């Protein structure tokens, strides 16, 4: 009987933290979505569903779609780069693994904004890449590398790539090597072993990494602002503008709720995928 109370005690600080800083603000935002903006930007505490009606206006849906597109591109590219990297790390010797994993996490030691500004230094019209290309005679005109969707996707991939590598690595490292040996003994070529064994078993890691990148990307508003030069409007910028520029907190809250709902659906889907995968593993 002592066990549950002990674990409850151990979880209390974490749960308390979450309740105070995640659940309470989320509830406040949720409630705000049902009120009206005052004429001068305050909140009139009159019940309304209008904010949700406004949220499904084609204008805002198109911004949401645009954000999903950008986040989707970032996710796909991060997976294509991150999976082989994770695969290589998982196959490296134990000592190398430790070194490589530290290298993957190294960018987190510096500030997010500084890393984003570094991309501006690299990509702008007078930046390092353009100046180098010009001086080597590879281009005659500076290329438009910055302030477009490509720059935003680049920034998102760069920032969130470690999440993919770590998530995929975690699932690959847990894999039972004897499965591969058995497959080899039975005469399967390496590519078939990969497709039939490694890839399916690493799918939960792939899903977790993809969700990380997608969810963090779709809500990001700093990268589109800095690397997109404000020309790319994502739902994060939209919410930011509603809260700050328009001083329309209720509408900003309704948009936030819509975004949270989408993210919860994705997380739910991922959980389902993991459960199916582990069920399959149990069968095997």
């Amino acid at each position: 009987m002592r066990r549950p109370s002990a674990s409850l005690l151990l979880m209390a600080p974490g749960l308390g933290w979450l309740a105070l800083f995640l659940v309470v603000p989320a509830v406040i935002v949720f409630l705000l979505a049902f009120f009206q903006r005052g004429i001068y930007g305050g909140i009139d505490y009159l019940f309304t569903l209008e904010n949700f009606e406004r949220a499904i206006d084609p204008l805002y849906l198109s911004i949401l779609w645009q954000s999903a597109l950008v986040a989707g591109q970032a996710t796909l590219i991060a997976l294509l780069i991150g999976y082989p990297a994770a695969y290589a790390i998982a196959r490296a010797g134990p000592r190398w693994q430790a070194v490589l994993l530290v290298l993957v996490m190294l960018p987190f030691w510096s500030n997010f904004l500084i890393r984003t500004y570094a991309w501006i230094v690299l990509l702008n019209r007078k930046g390092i890449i353009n100046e180098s290309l010009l001086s080597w005679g590879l281009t005659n005109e500076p290329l438009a590398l910055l302030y477009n969707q490509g720059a935003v996707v680049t920034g998102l991939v760069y920032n969130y790539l470690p999440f993919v590598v770590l998530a995929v690595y975690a699932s690959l490292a847990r894999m039972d090597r004897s499965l591969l040996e058995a497959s080899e003994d039975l005469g399967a070529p390496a590519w078939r072993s990969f497709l039939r064994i490694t890839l399916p078993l690493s799918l939960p890691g792939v899903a977790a990494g993809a969700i990380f990148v997608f969810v963090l990307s779709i809500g990001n508003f700093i990268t589109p602002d800095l690397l997109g030069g404000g020309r790319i409007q994502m739902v994060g910028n939209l919410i930011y503008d509603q809260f700050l520029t328009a001083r329309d907190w209720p509408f900003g809250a309704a948009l936030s709720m819509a975004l949270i709902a989408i993210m919860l659906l994705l997380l739910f889907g991922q959980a389902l995928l993991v459960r199916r995968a582990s069920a399959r593993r149990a069968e095997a």
Partner: protein
Amino acid sequence: MVKKLTFSAAIAVGCLLSAAPLAAETLVVGNWDGYMPPDLLENFAKEQGIEVEFTPHATNEEIMGKFMTNRGEGYDVVFLSSPFAQALNKLGLVAELDHAMIPNLANYYEEARALPHDPGNRYSAPYSWGTTGLCYREDLVEGTPDSWNDLLDPSPANKGKVTMLQTDRWLMQPALFMLGYSVNETDPEKLAEARDLLIKAKEGLLAYDDTTFYSKLVSGEAVLVQGWDGWCNYGIAETDQIKFILPKEGADLWVDTMIIPAASENKELAHAFIDYVLRPDVHSWVASNILYKVPNEAAMAEVDPALIETFPNLGMTPEELMKLELVEDLGEGQRAFTRSVQEVLSAN
């Protein structure tokens, strides 16, 4: 999203903490970072024998957010632009100024005492004023810019090398002026016209930029930008090839003001601080330091003429400024305005 929610929670808790009663003799001043001489607060504290605490904000919107959550409690003097002061006043969150406690109000230009948002300076004391125009690299730009159209429809040589402001009221200005409409326009049809013009202008645009446009001019990455007069001066300080011009179609008048929140518990000291800022020697030091015009006749008379020669827009007279249209709070019109801005920003 998780990050953002915890962030707003942190703000909420921060507000709770800052709402705790402060020692009576501590003055809390909220201003944009870098928008007053670094020694100004220190000197005032020394003169009065009190403590001064500085709380910087990055934007008007940020300080408005704080007022929305805790009615400005914890602040004694706040610097913000006139339309925001106007909105806070309508919400009843601003204290009335006691003129007997601010004798230096007498130093204001006559024009600064009759500004449309607050005639007679009942609740706001103008700190600086100016306009928004074109800031450009004389040596790099093709032609001599003199119209908002140079920004909206740049010549082939200038294409992709111009930036515009992103903050909603300023984002719409080039188009509103080009069409001959008011900066405070809220008519949906007129806003739609302006919107279409701005969406077309995105083709020739390098980026929207509110904060680093003058650096882009200095590096040559941009050759022509929409910018505030004082910020253009920061570019001029680095290269004299940068010039500022008011487009022929017109421009806005903006006024940054000092207000005392109704919730302030140090109103006497707050009045003393405003009076101190308006002292000719202090306010002229402000103008020379931040390179913005101040609405203080006695202070402007003390500004070094050589400085005005280097930064010509410092020399704009109140008569010239009064020909421009003041940016005012839009009230219920804000929603339609923001929607047009969103349409511009999200267009591809």
